[in-house]
């Protein structure tokens, strides 16, 4: 994965401060936590798409991941555990001109928030959802989550997790999201690109982002360091859709697919409301 230096050379590093609230760093995340890496990719994607901060709204639930909203200098809501999807629906539907992003964790989105997550996808409301998937409840100290791999250790699965995990991308797709993708914190430039596409997409876009909780998941599952974890789970544990296309299922093994996994065109919810209902209502009135 070494990057040819000449090609990548940038004269000036990206200025994250433009999008960060002054005086809030260092953030609360533990040393080596992947959440910060994800946030940086997101900020670069936002910069690329050129959204004004005044018209940007970020909504999160509760969890380490959900603390993201506190750092970004825009309209931010740190809502309730699992409910960011509902809060965001209210905001976006009220003001469709607000570019709206939901930040969630695997626990927030797939455990307590599962229902709101799938209903957001079903409505295909124009919101981009980031799931920071570290396969653990970080904030509460390392219990297994609905994405923790079977057999893994957590503070509530000391004998190895017996629960089969969800695939958030499969769920999003089945529920009706029209853009579904996966990347990792390790693949930071790829992630940026995918996030940009997700932001550009009209309708519900979901990006499942594998990142690492070295403090709980890492320690309990014998990863020696954050980078050891990133190598193991994010780099070696995943494969791009393009690469996978050339391999047999056996060769792919347990690796998770990266890239855009599903894309479709369907009417967007707010537009639907405006087009169909308001028109009909006017018609009804006139009649």
């Amino acid at each position, binding site marked *: 994965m070494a990057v040819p230096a000449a090609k990548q050379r940038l004269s000036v590093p990206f200025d994250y401060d433009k999008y960060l609230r002054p005086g809030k760093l260092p953030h*609360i995340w533990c040393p080596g936590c992947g959440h910060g890496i994800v946030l940086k990719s997101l900020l670069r994607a936002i910069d690329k798409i050129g959204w004004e901060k005044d018209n940007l709204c970020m909504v999160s639930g509760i969890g380490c991941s959900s603390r993201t909203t506190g750092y970004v200098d825009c309209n931010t809501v740190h809502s309730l555990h699992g409910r960011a999807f509902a809060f965001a629906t209210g905001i976006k539907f009220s003001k469709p001109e607000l570019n709206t992003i939901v930040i969630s964790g695997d626990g927030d989105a797939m455990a307590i928030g599962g229902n709101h997550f799938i209903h957001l996808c079903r409505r295909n409301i124009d919101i981009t959802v980031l799931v920071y998937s570290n396969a653990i409840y970080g904030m509460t*100290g390392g219990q297994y989550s609905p994405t923790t791999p079977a057999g893994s250790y957590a503070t509530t699965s000391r004998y190895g997790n017996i629960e089969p995990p969800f695939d958030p991308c499969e769920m999003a797709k089945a529920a009706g999201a029209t853009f579904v993708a996966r990347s990792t914190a390790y693949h930071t430039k790829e992630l940026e690109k995918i996030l940009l596409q997700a932001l550009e997409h009209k309708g519900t876009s979901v990006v499942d982002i594998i990142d690492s909780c070295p*403090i709980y998941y890492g320690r309990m599952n014998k990863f020696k360091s954050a980078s050891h974890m990133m190598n193991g789970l994010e780099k070696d544990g995943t494969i791009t859709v393009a690469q996978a296309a050339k391999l047999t299922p056996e060769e792919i093994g347990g690796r998770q697919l990266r890239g855009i996994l599903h894309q479709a065109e369907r009417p967007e919810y707010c537009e639907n409301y405006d087009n169909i209902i308001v028109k009909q209502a006017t018609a009804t009135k006139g009649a």
Partner: protein
Amino acid sequence: MGGRYEIRFSGSGGQGMILAGIVMAEAASIFGDKNAVQSQSYGPESRGGASKAEVIISSDPIDYPKATAIDCMLALTQQACSKYYKDIKDDGMLIIDSDEVKEVPTGAFKIISLPILETARKDLGKIIVANIISLGVMTELTGIVSNEAMENAVLSRVPKPFLELNKKALQKGFSMAREQK
């Protein structure tokens, strides 16, 4: 507040100050014959930032479980020291890490400065045992529990492979403190 002895361990999230508090309470109440209550507090993140553990030791039943006037406090970081030292009694004692705590608070209490973290790193090769060294120091300086009770308490909490390391760390704490007396 007859017989009530109040101890506070403080430092940053990962330094094992809570474990130190627990071991101190066990030394007093399980391996000694006193009553003890151990409590702690941490920020809303439940990790990171300054953390403190308190132990109240008494021959009588202990009602109020939090510190009222601290007999002895130990601080491994500047942040913890500055945040928590105010409750120390006039005739109390403050033990600080000599490398970490540079702004030494002023007060009527006695101040003892020891290179606890450095000792853990250098002499014992494991920063993680700083809390055990702290226990040794605290035991020796306060005398509120016997060295034997403390050793039993430490050993009962430590997994087998680390018994020797921790024994050494505790002894180091005892001896560092003895030199201060």
